[in-house]
């Protein structure tokens, strides 16, 4: 962890992501206004001391809504990455360790899935599953499995023939023990970097799908959904779209920098 802090990208990413997470955490307990409280007399106001990011077409406080939306987007991204990571770890770990025909077949499938733009696959899955918060988590989570499985597989295959693994085998350790107790801790640095890039992709995918009306549905909050609402008021209230968009950019940028600082792509 310490040597990462010397990296400028990592530091910048840590600061941006840290601030965003802090605001989101505070937002769980306190926002300046109730994100859903409407006020007929305060419609479409510009940013001011009372409403930092201005108000929307119902007079709702945009800052409070952005905080709530960022929290929702963050949680969806976390759930998505969790599905991809856990399943990817199991599939990638086993195929990387045992190799063989199944490994060959599964990795071919993973490669073909990765060749397609994720937004296209996500749309097909949503067509099958239906729209909604949980379906978008499931759809994106499933789509993230191949990339995690691929990374874990490569790393496990690399570690498989090292001395410490041979040693553990000589000591009589079982396959599962070697794989999950001995090998896994050694691939954590690579995993952390891919988790960060996973968050980066998940935030972008969730925002895109919800913007298109295929993800999170009203009344559930999400940054992508807010952007599509803001588009209708682009002329009267450009700040609505701008602040929401900047929140999305900061989330994506923060995770992108973190991943880069940890030696990711």
């Amino acid at each position: 962890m310490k040597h990462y802090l010397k990296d400028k990208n990592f530091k910048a990413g840590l600061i941006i992501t840290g601030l965003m997470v802090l605001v989101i955490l505070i937002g769980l307990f306190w926002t300046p206004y109730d994100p859903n409280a409407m006020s007929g007399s305060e419609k479409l106001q510009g940013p001011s001391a009372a409403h930092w990011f201005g108000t929307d077409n119902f007079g709702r406080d945009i800052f409070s809504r952005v905080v709530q939306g960022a929290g929702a987007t963050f949680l969806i991204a976390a759930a998505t990455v969790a599905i991809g990571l856990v399943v990817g770890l199991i599939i990638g770990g086993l195929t990387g360790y045992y190799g063989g025909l199944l490994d060959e077949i599964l990795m071919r499938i993973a490669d073909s899935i990765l060749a397609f733009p994720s937004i296209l696959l996500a749309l097909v899955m949503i067509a099958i599953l239906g729209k909604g918060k949980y379906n978008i988590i499931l759809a994106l989570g499933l789509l993230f499995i191949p990339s995690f499985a691929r990374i874990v597989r490569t790393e496990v295959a690399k570690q498989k023939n090292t001395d410490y693994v041979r040693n553990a085998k000589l000591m009589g350790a079982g396959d599962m023990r070697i794989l999950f107790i001995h090998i896994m801790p050694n691939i954590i640095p690579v995993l952390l970097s891919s988790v960060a890039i996973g968050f980066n992709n998940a935030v972008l995918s969730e925002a895109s799908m919800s913007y298109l009306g295929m993800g999170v549905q009203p009344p559930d909050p999400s940054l992508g959904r807010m952007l599509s609402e803001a588009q209708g008021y682009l002329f009267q209230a450009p700040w609505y779209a701008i602040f929401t968009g900047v929140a999305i950019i900061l989330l994506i940028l923060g995770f992108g920098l973190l991943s880069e600082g940890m030696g990711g792509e």
Partner: protein
Amino acid sequence: MAYVIKKTGVLIISLVLISLLAFLAFQIIPADPTTKILGTDYTPEKAEALREQLGLNDPLPARYLNWLKGLISGDPGISYSYFMPVKEVMQGKIQVTAALSLFSWVLVMLFSIPMGIILARFQGGHLERTGIVLNQVFMAVPPFFLGMLFTYLFGLVLQWFTPGGYVPFSAGFGKAMGYLFFPALAIAIPKAAKTAKLLRSSILNEMNKDYVRTAYSRGNSRWAVLRDHVLRNAMLPVITYLAMSLADTVAGSIIVEQVFALPGLGRLLLSSIGNRDFPVAQCIVVIIAFIVIFMNYLADIVTQYVDPRVRLN
């Protein structure tokens, strides 16, 4: 040549597989189009007759083969929403998406190649540091948000174009492409930033090799070494990446068409998913999937043509 034949074989198998997968994916969804098409005219007899007419009573393999035959001959079934051939529903939409994604693909190349070279040329300087920070930010901007910013800035404030006022190709090629410029730019910028970054690291990677030191020792300037020796090698991974990124610009246009209200395949795909008009959705998915696979195929062929080392492996 053997390489091309082998790759072409793989290409054909992939295309058949992907058409099968797309077909099966949309069969999972229980959808009986008859109630929708017949509306108030619905009687069980009419529904049965319609099902027979649409071929929905055939066994699954027969339906797949019929659909595939139709797809190849350019007649991929009947739309459930409009009750007219999918071909007619898609009329004119493909051109919009094709023009938009090709346009943004060209923009990606125009921006990323000079940008990558400049970043590598001025390595260590202020220009590079500023460039890298900007590049990183551009990579993080979602295309649809860029599209909204452009709509606000150039559409509403500066009034260079009318937001939502799509100009069809019948109004003249130049005018239509003019309207497509900002959507194409919105798709291209994040993609170009990623490509520039890849090119920069590819160049810097080459710069450490022995042949570069030799070229320097013969009195070449940094520009000359870059231009005459390094670039050719550094471009190899970038060419593959660029060929494959056409698929991403197509995917990007699905989203950006929505921002600029462009009547392309993307909007049709979204509305057909919303209306559960699966013959149309299935057809669009297959078309985009074919483009992806075909571009990967082209990338393989071009790489082996440019870099004979690939052929030997």
